[in-house]
């Protein structure tokens, strides 16, 4: 039984001795005592010590110089995407309507794009979230069961589902940060326990119906595009800010590069770790809701294809799998690329098996292209 296996895994890891640094009241006391001792006037500033004045004007550094490193790993996904678009257009010949293709690409791609933020944050921090499929399925099941086609129930069912997603992330984060369990093991175990719970909940059959608001979100048109696509646009802006331009982003990158150095630089490792898993859980829940809205139901297997897809998307987007480097635009590119490949293969009516082979090959090629130069 998956629940049992997952639980065994966790107990095994815990029993065999992990470093236990539980969050204690003492840490909180430490925080407050430090704040109380905060200096009224700061110590010497650079200027006081004798930094030279601004007099010596240096040429402002070009945008390309500043962002060259980033472009190198963000662009490949888009480059391959263009190629795929070209092939798709060629295959469809005269029938190809770019407009409607683009809309469906964005709609389908939005699922992976959203997942990509969560998984991307976790990977950048040096971890991995293998519980994604169940963090998608379980909140979806909750919504379809309780909202079951009614909007009024949705007003509490949807927030509940989002909280569940965040809660799953919090649980993962605590296992990894608080108990020192390896992320692969921790999230694998959580995932399998959730799998068991979902199985019991649903008895393996699709249940309930999505509330109308979700159906509207995915299937209707607002200004020519499904609301989900507008949401995606907003999400991309937020995602880029969160993953690349915020203080949070810096700390995540720091943790992913070296926990020890990050700690010695004043980063709260545990808080950052838990946050990224919570973000991942939240993103998974959002995607679960969207999928429920799209299919008008939730079923046991709905999350399965998304685990490896989320990792692939993150890697295609130039994220370093060992942590420390990522950019959300790259991940967006990866999501669109993966989706475009999928739909291109679908139009050629190749069997699922071949699709799988092609995904694997493209993933491999991307990783070869994107690897760091050998020393």
């Amino acid at each position, binding site marked *: 039984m998956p629940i049992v296996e997952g639980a065994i895994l966790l107990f095994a890891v815990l029993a065999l001795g992990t470093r236990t640094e539980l969050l204690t009241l003492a840490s909180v006391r430490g925080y407050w*005592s430090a704040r109380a*001792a905060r200096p009224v006037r700061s*110590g010497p500033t650079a*200027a*006081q*010590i004798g930094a030279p004045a601004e007099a010596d004007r240096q040429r402002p550094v070009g945008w390309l110089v500043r962002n060259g490193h980033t472009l190198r790993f963000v662009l490949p996904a888009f480059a391959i995407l263009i190629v795929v678009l070209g092939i798709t257009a060629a295959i469809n010949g005269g029938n190809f309507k770019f407009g409607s293709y683009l809309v469906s690409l964005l709609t389908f791609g939005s699922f992976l794009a959203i997942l990509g933020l969560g998984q991307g944050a976790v990977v950048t921090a040096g971890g991995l979230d293998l519980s994604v499929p169940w963090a998608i399925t379980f909140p979806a099941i909750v919504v379809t069961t309780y909202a079951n086609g009614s909007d009024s129930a949705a007003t509490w069912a949807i927030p509940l589902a989002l909280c569940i997603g965040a809660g799953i992330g919090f649980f993962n984060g605590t296992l990894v940060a608080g108990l020192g369990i390896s992320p692969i093991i921790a999230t694998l175990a959580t995932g399998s326990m959730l799998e068991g719970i979902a199985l019991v909940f649903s008895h393996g059959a699709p249940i309930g119906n999505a509330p109308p608001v979700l159906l509207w979100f995915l299937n209707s048109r607002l200004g020519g595009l499904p609301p989900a696509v507008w949401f995606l646009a907003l999400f991309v802006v937020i995602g880029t800010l969160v993953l690349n331009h915020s203080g949070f982003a*810096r700390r995540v990158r720091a943790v992913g590069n070296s926990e*020890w*150095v990050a700690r*010695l630089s004043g980063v709260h490792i545990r808080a950052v770790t838990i946050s990224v898993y919570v973000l991942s859980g939240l993103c998974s829940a959002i995607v679960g809701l969207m999928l429920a809205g799209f299919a008008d139901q939730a079923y046991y297997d709905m999350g399965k294809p998304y685990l490896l897809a989320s990792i692939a998307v993150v890697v295609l987007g130039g994220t370093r799998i060992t942590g420390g480097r990522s950019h959300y635009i790259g991940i967006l590119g990866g999501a669109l690329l993966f989706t475009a490949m999928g739909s291109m293969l679908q139009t050629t009516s190749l069997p699922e098996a071949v699709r799988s082979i092609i995904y694997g090959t493209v993933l491999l090629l991307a990783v070869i292209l994107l690897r760091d130069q050998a020393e």
Partner: protein
Amino acid sequence: MQATALSISRLTVRYGPTTALDAADLEIGAGQVHALLGENGAGKSTIVKVLSGLVRPNAGSLGVFGRIVARFEPRYANALGIRTAFQEISLVKDLTVAQNFMLMEEPLNALGMVRGRALDDMVRARLEQLGINSIDPRTEVRRLDLPSRQKIEIARAISGNPRILLLDEPTASLSNRDVQWLGDVIERLKRSGTTTVLISHRMQEVRAFCSALTIFRNGRTVGAYAMGDLGDAEIIELMIGRSLGTAFPPKRDRVEANSKMAAPVLACQNVATVRGSDISFSLHPGEVLGLAGLDGMGQRELFLALFGVLQPTAGEIRVGGQKVQLRSPADAITCGIGMLPEDRKTEALFLELDGRENVSLPSLQRFLHGGLIRSRVEQKMVANVLDLVKVVRRALWNPVRNFSGGNQQKIAVAKWLLTNSRVLLLYDPTRGIDVGTKTEIYHLIRRYADSGGAVLFYSTEIPELVNLCDRVMVIYRRRIVETLAASALSESTIMSAAVGRQRIDGASEQHATAH
């Protein structure tokens, strides 16, 4: 005419945009003990890596006993009779001493399996032959302390009966007695014909062991000399390319302004760190307080406790008069304490990130507006502090790994200067740093203190403590055994206390450098 053991001609090694070796030349006669001297980033360690087969040169040629080396792999170097004791100890922590010793050369039985007991016995015999009797070959390396690991690293290189022995900073963690041991070993090897190449920053050992030296600067060969040709000052001048002048900034006359006046910014009362100790002292604004001590006397634990990494088991710490419990470095930073740790590569800097991200991290709060980074402000302030430490502006945008050791250390210093901390804890900040950069760092420390900052400065080089600090505490067996005021500071007084002797007036019989 003696045979030439090593002949390097116009060797060039580039790591991306950085040139580590630039058409360098080196010639070492057979049986010589030859020193390679130079600042950090001068190329000495790179030469060792090339000779050990870890790095392939971009241009130039390398000849070993007359044969041109074409393949650069550790096994090939080994086959040529080259053995290396690396600066960064190359022992595998999860294996035992015996396994490490004979890695890839273990005795096998008929089925190809390693014979464990035979291995242990062989290694034990070899260690005894080398005069190491206190280390059990069955111990896992992770259980050994640093000096023991260094001895094993050296022993392993020596036991292979090398034709050419490369020692890169072999005495960094050795005790006085062990340095003596090393000297004896080198002498024995010399008599049996081994050629030894020694890299060390410690002039005393270099003079004692070596008969010739080659000086490098910026990846190029400056010149080769016999040991008697040059005095210390000349050597340093050749290493840094200019006259050293006054290495240390002038000390302010602190007699009147000392201690009793200003309120201490940091005070420890009977602080006991993990290993059981009792430390009390106070640090005042504008003061550079030195800390001297042999390895493992509790200084590391003290620093970690002051920075919130370790929790003291007893005693209290006060910052600015206020009692604090520092549960994490973040707490320490909040109170205005910053720490520059021992190893810049693994503790102070993110090698893959650029200078901007590295330097701004502890001070990130100041650049945040609604959670987002104010890029231009950050850029300006980081550039400002990089100018202060004299690091090129392009460090803002390039991964820190591309810069030399000295520059990396300056970037690390910049990181803490940007925090506007009122207390800086510096743990051996100039270790492994070239002479030129050291001077710059001394001046920075002085200016920081003169602007009102307080510094706790631990160093393994006594002259630094004597010349830079206003007071020096000596730690011995986890206690402060001596606090020396400016007037009483001298190498001998510090050393005596560090080895646990009572203060003796007059010269001590110990060597000036004990580690």
